Each structure stands twice: as structure tokens, then as C-alpha cells.
């Protein structure tokens, strides 16, 4: 190298010499993929259109969930005027679907996830006054391993669950965590939300995400850290993409940063499997 007064000049010249032109084939491929992604996104964000909007809502389950939980939605039955040959009546299972999830997640799936994630995440799914249904909260924290196993099965089959199918409450309450003093804890993906723990393993709705102002915060132990990792992973699935810097690998790193006790129902293994599958 020549001896120059300012080495930055040398560095700039070297950088210019070293910087290659983009590979044309790779450029074509990337641009084509990006344009296809743009088209898919536009198609997803298009309203179903005029008179068929109600049909899309019915098929997606949003209307049934709303009917089950709000009095105002009952009025909508009359307004909708379902045709005799319309969709079949909702099953009891669909009527008991977690309404707050449906409302929030329906919005999350329609809205731009990039642009609105902070707004959405400031409204955790369990803030509704509507009591949790058994389906939403899990039957028992000791016996319900199915949500995680089902999630892992979906992911291993190469399918992402739809945001509507993800219930943070069901997933975190499926983890068999021993009794702890009641407390609430900060979560790393949203400063405005806390993980509240009633501390009672027999409480099917033991863990909840709540607004930060409701309760005090304490330091989490290993079990709670694991639950926070699970809740964060479920939130990431529910909101579709990374949440303000928090992503699947953060959840995995947090889950793997702690050692927790025996896992008789293998729920925690299923949880780690699910996170790893999505992180890979």
C-alpha cells in the first residue's frame, strides 16, 4: 500500500475494489421471490368483498366466536340473515373457542404485522373480562400436554399454525409448574405486559399476561423463566412475526438458559421441540 496521509482513502479505494457486483442470477431470483411475496401479501390484505365478507368471517370462525361471547353479537345473527343453504350451524366446540383470541388474532392476521405489532402486543390476549373457557385455559396443568405436542406435530409437518389457532393461555397453562408464591414478572418482548402467576398448580388459568400496571414485579426463578420463554414463543406465533426484536431464537435461548425439574408429562420437551423446529 502507498503511504497516504489519510488511511481512510486507502480503505475506501480497497473497499471499492473489493465490492463485487451482484450475481445476476441470484438477483433475478431474489427479486422474483420478493415480488411474489408482495403479491401474496396484497392478496391476503384484500377484503373478501361486499356481500361475501360475512361468509369469509363465518368460515374463519370469527363470527361464531363473537356470538358465543358478546351480547351485541347476538344482534348480528338477525342482521346476517343466514341463507337456509348457508354454512352449517356452529358446533359446540367452535362456540366455546377462546373469544378474546379470535378477536385479537383475527385483527393480527389481517393487519400489517410489521406496522402494528407494537399496538397488538400491547393488548395481550388475556385482557378480556370474558372468563377463560376450558379449551382456552387448558384442562389441567398436570395433564394437558396436547397443545405443545400438536404444535410440534404441525411444525414438524412443515405447517405453521394459523395465528387464530394459537392460544398463549392454553400453551403456558399446559406446562406443569410446581407451586410458587403468587407474583408477576416482566416479559422481555413487551415492557407493558407482565406474566402473572397465581402460584397454584391446580388453577387451570394459573398463568396470565396482564398489563404491567396491575401488579408488582419480582425476579423469575428457573420455572418462571421457562414459562416466560413459552409465553414469548406463543406470542411470536400469535402475532405472526418477530415482536419488536423478540423472536423464536430468543425464546429458545431463554428456555435453554434454565434447568427445570422432572418433566413427567414431557410437555416441556414438546415445547422445546416446537421452538427448535421453528428456530431451525
Amino acid at each position: 500500500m502507498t503511504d497516504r496521509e489519510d488511511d481512510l482513502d486507502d480503505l475506501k479505494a480497497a473497499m471499492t475494489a473489493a465490492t463485487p457486483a451482484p450475481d445476476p442470477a441470484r438477483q433475478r431470483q431474489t427479486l422474483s421471490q420478493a415480488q411474489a411475496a408482495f403479491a401474496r401479501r396484497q392478496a391476503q390484505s384484500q377484503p373478501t368483498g361486499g356481500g361475501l365478507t360475512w361468509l369469509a368471517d363465518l368460515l374463519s370462525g370469527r363470527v361464531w366466536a363473537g356470538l358465543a361471547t358478546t351480547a351485541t353479537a347476538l344482534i348480528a345473527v338477525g342482521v346476517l340473515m343466514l341463507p337456509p343453504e348457508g354454512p352449517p350451524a356452529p358446533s359446540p366446540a367452535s362456540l366455546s373457542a377462546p373469544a378474546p383470541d379470535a378477536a385479537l388474532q383475527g385483527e393480527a392476521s389481517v393487519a400489517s404485522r410489521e406496522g402494528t405489532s407494537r399496538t397488538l402486543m400491547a393488548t395481550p390476549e388475556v385482557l378480556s373480562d370474558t372468563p377463560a373457557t376450558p379449551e382456552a385455559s387448558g384442562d389441567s396443568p398436570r395433564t394437558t400436554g396436547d397443545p405443545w405436542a400438536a404444535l410440534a406435530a404441525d411444525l414438524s409437518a412443515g405447517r405453521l399454525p394459523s395465528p387464530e389457532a394459537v392460544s398463549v393461555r392454553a400453551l403456558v397453562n399446559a406446562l406443569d409448574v410446581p407451586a410458587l408464591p403468587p407474583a408477576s414478572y416482566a416479559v422481555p418482548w413487551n415492557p407493558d405486559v407482565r406474566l402473572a402467576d397465581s402460584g397454584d398448580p391446580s388453577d387451570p388459568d394459573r398463568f396470565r399476561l396482564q398489563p404491567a400496571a396491575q401488579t408488582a414485579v419480582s425476579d423469575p426463578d428457573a420455572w418462571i423463566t421457562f414459562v416466560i420463554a413459552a409465553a414469548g414463543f406463543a406470542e411470536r406465533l400469535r402475532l405472526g412475526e418477530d415482536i419488536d426484536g423478540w423472536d423464536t431464537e430468543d425464546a429458545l435461548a431463554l428456555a435453554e438458559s434454565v434447568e427445570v425439574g422432572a418433566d413427567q408429562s414431557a410437555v416441556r420437551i414438546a415445547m422445546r421441540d416446537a421452538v427448535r423446529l421453528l428456530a431451525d
Partner: protein
Amino acid sequence: MMTDDSELARAAADGDAAAFAAILDRHYAGLFGLCFRLTGARPEAEDLCQDICLALPGKISSYAGQAKLTTWLYRVAVNAAHDRRRKQARHAKARDGWGDWEANRRAADAETATQIDWLHQAMGALPETLRDTLALTLDDITHAEAAEILGVSEGTVSWRISQARKALRAMRTAEDAP
């Protein structure tokens, strides 16, 4: 025909596929160059550039039009590079940026290869914040614009450049020492 970046970005945010394609066509080469300067390796740069382009359909609606489109785009790129490094580090697969120069010098002539060797040695020895700052300013991006892209003050950019200059001088002195 739209020629203004902001106009194209607004149209793309409104769902105009042709405007989105025009943005990509217009800025891919610049974006790739920045990706290379941020990573120091062509394959990494290609992958990073692809990540950014595939994320753009979801991000374009957040472009508010207050900054130049390239400023916004480069900010997206710098953030994506940081995310990628973080993830790679977590997976223990990371090559420290600017650590793998063999592929870059392979096709170069002897003089250019020497220049590239020095570039990789110098960039590899600098802290990440200085490297990222240089990745922008060595491409004739102003300190003010680099500050906006990096989310720091213009004074911080100038200070980083002066730190980089000092580090380069120290490296040169060490090289020249008998």
C-alpha cells in the same frame, strides 16, 4: 411514469406491484453493495440482501416518507445485518464479519489482492460499530445520513470515523515497525 422514490414507495405501500418492482430494480445493486460492506463476504451479502428484499413487502407500509427512501432502506439493511449477526452468534456459526476474505481475493490480480488483504485485515480489526459506520460512509453517504440510518447523532458518526482513522494509523505504524 413515477420517478420519485417517495412516490414509488407510497404507491407500493398502497399495493402497486409495479412500483414495488421498480424500487427493487432501482436499489438492489446499492443494497447489495451495502450488504457486502456490512458482512465482508459475498455469500453472506447475497443472503442478507435476499432476507431484506423478502421482508420489504411487509415493511414498505412503514416507510413514512420523512427520510429519503435509501436512508430508510439502508436502516432496514443495517438492522437486518445486526439481527443476522445476533442469530449467527447464537448458533455459534458466526464468522466474524470481514473474517473470510479468501473468496473475495481469489479472482483479483496481485495488486488488488494485496489491497483486499489489507482491507480485510483492517476491517476485521475494527469494532463492529466502527465497521458499520465505515460501511456507510465509505460509500459516500454523508455523516448526517449515516447518523439517521444508524440511529445515532451526527457527532457520534464523526467521532467513530475519527476512531477508525486512529485505529488504521496505529495498524499502519505497527506494520511499518521493523
